[in-house]
Every structure is written in C-alpha cells, then in structure tokens.
C-alpha cells in the first residue's frame, strides 16, 4: 500500500508544477509589446511617426494614396471625363465595376469604395494610436521633447482626413485609437474641414523646412511645404468643403469664407494665393523639362513637392497604372507585362487637340496614340510578328467587345518614364510617384486670382510656356482645360470637375443619372456595411 501512495504522490507532484499560473501566460518571441517599441525617443520617432509613412503608398488594391488600383486614385480618375476602362471582350468587365465608376453607378456596397474607406480610417486610427503612445512616452519621460513628433503625426492625420472628407463629405471625426461605437457619429462636412485646417495650421510651424521629394532625412515626409500645399488645396475647394448640403443647389461664396492665416484674416482665394506664395518663396520652381518630374530618377526634381518614394529593391510600394494601361505586346517590348486596360477619353483628345495641328505638346508626354515603338526605336508588332500595334484613340468607348479595335481602342498612359529594370511586371519601379507638384501650385494660384476677380494670366502662362505652348487668358474654362492637360492622370480630375460644377453633367459615353443634377454623386456613399455596423451613421442624400 505504501508503494501505491508514493507513486500517487510522485505523479501528482509531476502535474502540480503546471498549476503555477505563468504556464498559461503567453511569451511572444516574434513580436514586441508596445512598451518596448516605445522605450526611447528614437523608438518613438521610428514606430510612432515613420511607421505611418508605410501607409502612404501600397501594394494591395485600395491601399495607399496612389500607385494601386481600386483606391483613392481610381475613384478620383475613372469617375471622370479623363479616363476610362473599356470592357474588352473577356477582359475588364470585372462584374461591371469599371463601367459603374464611369457611369457614376458605383452603388452603396461597392467593395472598392468600402476598402478605400477602411484604408483611410485605419490609417487615421493608427495615427491616433501613435499620438496616444507618444503622449504616454512624454508622461514617462518628461525631459524628452516630443513636440515635433506630435506635429508630424497630426499633419499626417489631417492629410488622411482631407482625403476622407473630399471623397465622403460628412464623416465621423475620430481622435482616439479605441473609440466607442456611440462616438461614431457623422460630423458636418464644414466641421471636418475646419478640423483639418486647424490641425495643419497648428502643426506646420513645427515641421521641417526641408524638401520632402528629395532624399534626405525628410524624404517622403510631411514638411512645411507639403502642409502649405494642402492648405492651398483646402482653401481652393473651400466652397465645396464648407457646403454642408451639397444637394441643395447652392454653395457658399469663397469671397466670404475666411481663414486666419499667420495673423491675417483672408478669404478663401487670398488664402490660396498666400500659401502658394509661401511655396514659391521656399524655392520650388518649374522643371525646364516637363518629363523630368516623372523620370526614373525624379528625386532631383525642383518641381515635385510630395512624392511616394519608390525603390524596387527596398520598398514594397507599387505603381500599377502603366502596367494596366499598356497593350500586352507594348509592355512585352519593354520586357515587362501589361494588362491592356485604361485609356484616355474623347474629352482628353478634344481638349489636347489631338489629331490637329494645334495639339498640345503634353499629349505626347502623357499618352501613347497610334503606332508605338520599343526603346530601341523599332515598331512594336502583335503576336503574329507582322501586324504593327496601333492604338486607336478615337475608338474608345465603354464597351469595345467584339469590335476589330477591341484590344487597341484608346490612347494609353505614358507619363512616367519606362523603368526597364522594373520588377513584378513593371509594377515595382524606381520612379517616385508624384502626389503634389509646383505646376499645380501655379494653376491653383491663377484660379484663385481669377475667382477673386484678379488677373491670373501670369501663373497660367508660366505653366504653358514651359511646354512651349502659346499663352492663354486665365478664364475658368481655360483653367479647367489646362488642369486636364498639365495634370493629366495625376488624380485631381474628380475634385476639379466638382469645383467647376461639371462633375454631374453628362459627357462622352456617360448620360447624367436620374436625379444627379442635384449633385449627390459629388460625394461617395458611406459604405452600407459601415452603416450596418454603426447604427448612428446615415446615408447621404440621393443614395
């Protein structure tokens, strides 16, 4: 019997070591806890601030400000009279997605819109998380100066809010990383707008004066001139952004929207002008060669203000716009791949004066049309090795399936210099993606002056003369055309059309939707799934 008890005792002793509670604790070895990731000021800069720049670009659909598909860029581009994704037989129908964008019938459950919303708010919440952790760090380390870090994150967050407010109008304003469901309520568009302006204005003085588009400590980061550019954009669109009911047919007047700018009270147009002047004073200037801004090595550009740094070997950010536009054999001739998709609309051809003696010089910088040559200057041929590849710009339409020009209709994107060493079908390349540049500053300034009743010819013609084009008078009509040509396929067209009041009009292959004249399509719907899950949100008028 004794033997039995000793066996029993020994056995239970064996089991009992497990009863200590630490056995059930987790000790991760492949990730860090937040405290460790924020233990020094350098950690705070790295994981609290710089980490957020990973979300400016992207390599997955709907992620990043530009470079990827089905995201902010596509919502701002393929919904306009600037770009179209024709259905080409078995290709590019994609369940009606692209036609839906072009026809403004994107629906309230559009997955791309939903994913874009998620991307933007995720980034905002991560910014909020950074601010909270920086605050925690500051409380534990009162001697460290975190003011620069806080300013940079606030500016970055304001930029993401600017995209949210531009796309979705009246949206929730969230300043916590862990908000309650009951705090998710829609704010008026003007309130969100004022918040963004305040955040940018307050943080700008603490930001760096360095150039953001050129390699250095501030490469790709929020600097003063980036914030000034954003403030100019915000003021330029202030009539739209302060309009809390965009379906009532009236809009506030920019002359009576006032901003406090460095101690002065300026109206919207004067504010645009003020910030544009500051950018000019900071040394930004037009490149002599338009195409230099989009070259493989465009880091030295004196014109670019804010870019997504690209490096095919170091970073993961991709640029798919050339890839998805070029014809298969066209891409193949460069040793890359193509998806034969996106094309310029008839409005583009008309505005540039394509096929006329007066064609704008920038058409050839921005688009491929007609026969195309490889980098060695040889004619590019189709698979049969005989037929030359000839793009047919005028045959572009919403659906070209079954037509002889099914694969060749439409002028294609050229803008960025071919990176022959591009990877992943040419989606990984070294050309930095241009988000903001100085030519836009001049055009904003010209437009603001015209809208304020002044003369904007000088700025407009500075831009035109750089590409050797004859001067034009700065009228609103000329300015909208000029923006289509100068800023072709740079992601501004939807915003411009809305500001000029032409977004909801019909254009080629696109009739006006019933009821669209009230302007309801100038903002995207709050994704229905988000409303389902946040009972306090409501859908915008018209949807």
């Amino acid at each position, binding site marked *: 019997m004794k033997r039995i008890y000793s066996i029993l005792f020994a056995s239970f002793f064996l089991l009992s070591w497990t009863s200590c509670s630490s056995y059930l604790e987790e000790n991760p070895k492949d*990730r860090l806890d937040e405290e460790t990731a924020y233990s020094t000021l350098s950690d705070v800069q790295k994981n609290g601030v710089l980490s957020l720049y990973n979300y400016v670009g992207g*390599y997955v659909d709907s992620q990043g400000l530009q470079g990827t598909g089905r995201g902010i860029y596509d919502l701002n581009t393929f919904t306009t009279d600037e770009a179209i994704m024709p259905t080409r*037989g078995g290709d590019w129908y994609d369940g009606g997605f692209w036609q839906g964008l072009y026809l403004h019938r994107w629906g309230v459950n559009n997955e791309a819109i939903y994913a874009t919303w*998620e991307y933007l708010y*995720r980034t905002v919440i991560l910014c909020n998380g950074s601010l909270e952790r920086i605050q925690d760090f500051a409380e534990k380390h009162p001697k460290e100066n975190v003011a620069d870090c806080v300013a940079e994150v606030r500016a970055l967050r304001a930029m993401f809010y600017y995209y949210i407010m531009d796309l979705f109008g009246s949206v929730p304003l969230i300043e916590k990383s862990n908000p309650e469901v*009951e705090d998710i309520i829609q704010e008026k568009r003007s309130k969100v707008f004022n918040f963004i302006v305040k955040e940018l204005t307050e943080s700008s003085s603490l930001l760096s004066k360095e150039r953001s588009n050129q390699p250095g400590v501030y*490469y790709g980061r929020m600097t003063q001139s980036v914030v000034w550019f954003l403030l100019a954009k915000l003021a330029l669109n202030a009539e739209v952004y302060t309009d809390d009911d965009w379906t009532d047919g009236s809009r506030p007047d920019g002359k009576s929207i006032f901003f406090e700018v460095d101690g002065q009270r300026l109206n919207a147009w004067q504010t645009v002008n003020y910030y544009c002047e500051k950018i000019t004073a900071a040394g930004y200037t037009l490149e002599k060669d338009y195409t230099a801004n989009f070259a493989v090595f465009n880091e030295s550009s004196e014109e670019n203000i804010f870019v997504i740094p690209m490096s095919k*070997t170091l*970073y993961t950010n991709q640029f798919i716009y050339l890839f998805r536009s070029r014809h298969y054999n066209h891409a193949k001739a460069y040793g890359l791949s193509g998806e034969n998709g996106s094309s310029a609309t008839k409005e583009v051809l008309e505005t540039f004066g394509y096929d006329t003696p007066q064609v704008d010089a920038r058409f050839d910088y921005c688009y491929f049309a007609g026969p195309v040559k490889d980098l060695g200057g040889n004619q590019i041929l189709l698979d049969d090795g005989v037929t030359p590849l000839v793009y047919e710009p005028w045959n572009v339409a919403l659906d070209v399936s079954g037509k002889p020009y099914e694969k060749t209709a439409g002028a294609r994107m050229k803008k960025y210099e071919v990176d022959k060493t591009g990877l992943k079908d040419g989606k990984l390349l070294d050309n930095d993606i241009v988000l903001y540049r100085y030519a836009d500053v001049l055009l904003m300034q010209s437009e603001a002056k015209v809208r304020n009743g002044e003369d904007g010819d000088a700025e407009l013609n500075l831009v035109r003369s750089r590409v050797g084009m004859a001067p034009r008078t700065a009228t609103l009509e000329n300015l909208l055309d000029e923006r289509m040509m100068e800023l072709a396929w740079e992601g501004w067209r939807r915003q411009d059309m809305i500001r000029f009041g032409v977004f909801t009009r019909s254009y080629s292959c696109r009739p006006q939707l019933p009821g669209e004249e009230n302007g309801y399509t100038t903002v995207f719907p709050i994704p*229905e799934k988000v409303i389902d899950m946040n009972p306090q949100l409501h859908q915008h008028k018209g949807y």
Partner: protein
Amino acid sequence: MDKMQPISQALYSLLFLGCMGAGFPLYVQGQNVDELPPDSIYNIGYARGSLKNISGSVEQITEKQMNRELITNPLEAIQGRVPGLTILKSNNGMAALESVRLRGTTSLTSGNDPLIIVDGVLGDLTMLTSVYPTDIESFTILKDASETAQYGSRGASGVINIVTKKGRAGKTRVNYNGSFGVSHAYRRLDMLSGAEYRKLAAERGWSILDKGYDTDFQKAIEQTGLQQNHNIAFYGGGEASNYRVSLGFQNREGVIQNEGMKLFTANMNMSQKMLDGLIDCELGLFGSMKRDRTLFDLQKTFYSAAAFNPTFPDFPDPETGSWDQITTASQITNPLAWMDVDNREETSYFSSHARLTFNLLKDLKMVLFGSYTYSTTENAQFLPTTVWANGQAYRGNRKSEALLGNLMLTYQKQLGAHFLDVLALGEVEKNRFHGFYTTTTNFSSNELGYHSLQGGALRPWEGTGSYYEEPHLVSFLGRVNYTYDDRYVLTVNLRTDASSKFGRNHKWGVFPSVSAAWNITREKFMRRFHLIDNLKLRLGYGLAGNQGGIDSYTTMALVRPNGVTPVGNSPLVTYESLKNVNPDLKWEVKSTFNAGVDMGFYGNRLLLSVNYYLSKTRDMLYQYDVSVPPFAYNKLLANLGSMRNSGTELSIGITPLRTKDMELNINANVTFQRNKLLSLSGMYEGEYISAAQYTALAGLNGAGLHGGYNNIVYQIVGQPLGVFYLPHCEGLVSDGNGGYTYKIADLNGGGVNLEEGEDRYVAGQATPKTLLGSNISFRYKRFDVSLQINGAFGHKIYNGTALSYMNMNSLPDYNVLAEAPARNIHDLTATDYWLENGNYVNFDYLTVGWNVPIKKQRFLHGARLALTINNLGTISGYSGLTPLINSTLVDDTFGVDDKRTYPLSRTYMISLGLNF
C-alpha cells in the same frame, strides 16, 4: 427548430439506390455488421468499456468493416461507413485530406476537423498520413457531446480515435499487403478543337493567331499515373510482452504531369508486463516521411489548359526552346509551361509515446501517459521565367512540436447488479510552432530552380518571414459511469480546460456532460419478443469547447514590422500593431443534445440505428468583419454569434442471405443535416457590435471577373452557412447583334441593381442536406464483391466554369466550350442561370476479391487477390464535369465550380495480401 426532412425522401433514396445497384452483381467483402461481438471492448475517450456500459453515441469500426482497397489516407477506410462523416479529399487524390466533418460545420473558425487520436497521441489531420491504413485495428468515433466532453476543449467537432494493431502472444507472424494500380483521365471539358476554333474565326471574321496545329491542351498535360503500395508487418509475443513492427511505402503518380506522392511509414509498438504484473508498460513509435509534388495553382493550370489557343503546338519553339505564349490572353499561360513549375512539399513526422499502467489494487489503476510529436514540413517552389515574370523561387519550413502528459486514475467495481466506473485525469499539453520562409526573384536561369536560391537576384522584403508560437493547455477530467443490472446506464463527465491563448480572466472553461441509456432488451417483458435481439435507447446532453485554429497573442497589444520606410538614404523597418486586439477572448462553447435508438432483429440480421442531434454553438470564435472605425482593422477575432446544427442519422444493416457458401450484406446510412447561422453579433468590451449582414465566402476568378459583382456564396445571418446569393436570370435575351445576354430580374423594383441587399436572392445552399453512404457486398465461397456508393442531395453548385467558357466575348483570346457558338451568349454576368442542382449518386468503387485456397502448409497461412476500380460513375443532373466539388469546407472554393476541376479519372488496382 428546423423542419425535419420527410422520411419518405430517405426511403426514396434507398429505393432509388436499390434499383441502381441491381445492375451490378452483389457480393461480399466478408464484412458483417452483426459479426461485431456485443461485448467487445470500446475505447470511449480515455475510458474503456463494453457496449452495454455505453450511454453516448459511440461507434466502433473494426477491420472487418473497413474499406480495404484503394486507400491512401486511413480515413478513407471508413468513408461511407459512418453516418454524418464527410471527407473532402484533396483534388488530386493525394494522401492529404482537405477537411473532415462529423455532423457538419459547427464553428466558423478552422477548428471544425475532428480531433484525431492515434494510440492515445492527440493530433490533427496531418497525423493521419503517418499511419499506414492496414496497420489500423479499429476506429472509434465519438460524435455527441456526452462523450466528446471528455476531450473538453478539443472535442467539439467530434473525436476519431484510432487504435493500431498490436502484437499477439504466439508465433511470430508476417503480413504483406501490396498493390499496383494505374490511373488515367477519361473525361475533360469539351472545348472547341483547333479545327473548330479556326473555322469559327473564319466565319465570324476574327483575326486569330493560327499556328496551324490542333492541340487538346487538356490532354497534353495529362499522364498515366502508376501507383504502388507495399506494407509489411511482423508481430508476435509471449505471456509478458508482445511487439509489432510495420513498414509501409506508397508511391502515387497523379493524372497530371509531374504530380506524385511518395510516402514511407514506420510503426512500432511493444508492451511489457513488469514487477509481477504491477505495471504494464506500452511503448509506441510511429513516423513517416512524405514527399508530394503537386500543381502550384489548380485554377491557373486548368484554366490555361482549357482556354489556351488550340492551334498552338504541344511542343516548345524549336529555336528558343521556350513555350509560345499569347500575350492578349493575359490571365492564362501556355499550359505546358505550367508543367515546368516545380512545387513540392516534404513532411517528416515522428511521434513517440509511452503508457505505464499501475495495477494498484484489483479495482484501482493508475495510468501515466506521455507523448512527444515532432513534424516538419518543407515547401519548395520554383516558378520559371516562362510562367512568372523574371522567375521566382520560394522555400519555407514549418516545425511543430507537441508534448503531452497525463495522469489518470480509474476505479471499476461490480457490486451485485451495480457497476461503477470512475475516472479522474489531469493533463498538460505544450505546443510549439515555428518556421520561416524566403523568396527570391529575377532568375537568369531556370535550370537550378529552388535548389539555388542565390540564382535569384532579388529578395523582396515581403517575401521573407518567420514566426513562433507556443500555446499551452491544462485540463482536468472527472467521469462516473454507473450501470444497474446492465439495463440502466448513466454517465457523467466534467472536464475543465485552460488555454494560454485566451484573455487573463477567461482562460478556464468548464465542460460538463450527462447521458443515460436503457437496454430495453434486458427487461423481462421483452422476453416475449424473440425477434428483437437488441433495443437500446440513449439520451445525452453536454458542452464542448473549441479553440481550434485561432492564433496566439490575440489578447495582447503587440507590434510587428509593418514595412520599410525611407529615412535619409537608408531603409528603416518600423513596427506597428497589425491586427485588432481582443483582451476578452474566451472559449467557444457548443452544446449538443443527442437521442438515439439501436435495434437488432432476426438474429441481428437487421440492424437499425437512429440518432437525432441538436447542437448550438455559442460565443462563436471567428474573425468577424467589423467596422472601421471604431476598429483599425476590419477583422476582429472575437466570441460573438451563434450557430445551430441539427440532424438525423439513420443506419441500416441488412443480411438478407446467409448460408455457408453465400452471404449478402447491405449497409446504408443516411444523414439529414441542417445548419443555420443564428447571429453574428454580440457584446464586445461592453458594447454591442455586429458583423456585416453579408459576407462573401466564394466568388469567381479569371479574365473579366476581377472584383465587381462576382461573389457567389455568402454567409448571411438567418441562413445556412454558405448560401448562393445571386441575381435572378429570367432567361436569355437578344443582345441585338445576333447573340444573347442574361436578362436579370428586377426583384425589388427601381431598376436592376446587382448589389448586395438589392436584386439578389438566396437561391440555395452549398452544403448537402442529405448524405448517403452505402456498401453492398456479396460473398460466394471464396469470391467476394463489394460496391461502395455515396451520394449527396439538397445542395446546389455554381457552374462558374460554364459561365466563363460559354461567354463568346472571350473569343478569340480564350477558347470556349464546343457548344458555346450555338448558344451564342455574350455575357459574363454572374446570375442564377448557372446555378445547378448538385444532387448526385457516385459509385465510388467496386472490388472483386478472391481468397486463394491454400493447402495447410508450414509458412503461408492465407492469401488474397483483389481487383478494384474506383470512380465507376456518377449519376447527376449537373452539367459540369463532376458534382464532386467542395461542398464541405467553408473557404473560397465553397460550392463554386470555377475552372479548377480535374479531368475525371479512374484507377484500376490489383492487390495482394499474404499472411505468413
């Protein structure tokens, strides 16, 4: 409660089958349901008991009842034999199983596969490949919570307990089993041939790239697959010890070029009595080494094979040595170029265990059990420059270790008519999962492949990674089984588990169960009914927990590298939280009610068993779709929602004929199953949160199908898990150019809108409502024949293959079905037009065996020869290649046949068994 399937439908199915079977000769495989001795010892979880002491739903299948031929994975031995068991084999007939379900899908996490136990070692589906099928002595299947509760956290999806053969006292014996087989594809999609394609292009005035050949690329990528299996076992023993050693080898070639599998297994066990019988010691080792070469991307391969320009040659360009491509068909690649892709997996598995049984007193035993399992899987992949821009090589290694120990005390006492069986158990388990992978790209040569990772110029940042997890579990179990006069049985289990994966205050879960049974045949009043040999009623209720498939560290706020960001000229890796944190994560709990009756008539020549179950899963663990904001990420692992499963399982065994020379057995089981997703909302951190109303599970891929309204199967609250949610097509309408498009119904007025919540409706479910397994066997003297029939009813299949290949718009870049030009549909919109009935009856295999007469001699004791043919045929109204697609596993292929189906193939196999 769900409406019960009318019984008449089941009978109809049976009758229907009877008719079908009539065309086939019916003979035996020597398998009799009733030969099972009523007093055989069952493994009921940790406990062991005889049939009369069982009050839960426990099924045991011994070697005689198993499928014997054409088995690669052990579970195939019981396929069709267990009501409620569905096995989804991997597409290519290789060893690994995609998924196994007992009584359907009850959880939204991946913890739906049953717990697999081999000789006491706990594992998952991967462990099965390390056991050679003929080494198995018995399977015990625990389905309802009254007995699965013994495994608490692990048993929610049922338990399959495998006991391997052991040595026996007596002379040393040797068994050999071997087989040779050939498999070949016999049917594929009927696409336009080269000539037809050429003719059509000429008629319609398309300019095509005509290389002048007529190639059936579907055929061009096939091969005749040879198969062989060998297993040799030695066993023997004496009074105090015994042993058994077995070695196995399987070699399988698939029906598509380069597909193949090699598997080596070894299994050793021994037992020894020590210290005058005080201690019984058992030791076991099993291990395996498996090498697979599989297709890298099923869809890309079969899509390319079907749709590639048929005028291209089936040989590479003689000048360049590379495969001709069509640049305009960007979603496909020359299918023969795909055959150059090298995609391999190598899995080594090793497991050892020891069990010490201390016979402390006559009625009191203590069992100490320990096991250690180690497995490592290496994946290697090379995509040559012909199919992948610049080429890509990948290698990855995953290691998994499990250390398990338990201590159990059992007390069994018979006092007059009272029998008491008490069990107490404590158990600890420690797992470790770790691994890494790396990718290189930009190859200048395709020759060395993944053997030379340095052959790639670049290593993309996101192509490399590693991970480490170390979850722990602690459990205690108490069990009491009381039987009075072999008439009344009562079993109570109480298990408590703790897992390191859950939140600080939610680590422990308690899972009780109770069940009772009444052996009516033991009552005096039943003596009058001579024809009734057995009548037993069972009732049970219990809870089981689940934590399967969830990640570690979900409850902690942690950061991981989120990318490389430029600072100055140097790249910098930064850290960020990459998922939502849920500090309150806890156990998912499933409660099950089970009622059953077992009957035997006419000397057990008619056996009938009926079980009804109703289960509800609460606090369902799932990566819920949550809203951004308030969350940063759109997935949250949380305990929300609930799901209900119910079903009736009916099994019948009939022996209408039994003489010395002849015997006929018919076994059939029918399962009626229902599932409903009750809720996807609940409380999280004190707030009510709700997941999205519609979640797409499976959709379509391919040219013109990227995004948009191409989601087909959805998860919708209030519906069964996995329903077809589609626009309704009213028929074909002219497109004005001589072709047709799908006319979509405006279901809710206001114009046609394909969005979720608009003109879509729930058009059916992806999971069968009725499952059928049936085996008919007939023996005449030394010959036997066995036919296995399976079926599934009540579900639908989306024929996405036809949607794509009927679309005339895809010509001439993508080939179409031969009948497409006649139909002339120019539309790729996903509607219910291609939603088809999925009902089928499949004649799984037919075996003819011969037990070779052997004169009594010294060495050879027995020999058997058998011929098996599988995939005899399928009866189905489905217009695609086969209705046997994924109707089980909730993933992105669920219920959708989308250009990824293998050609239909058949295997002929001759097998030989020798006993020395």
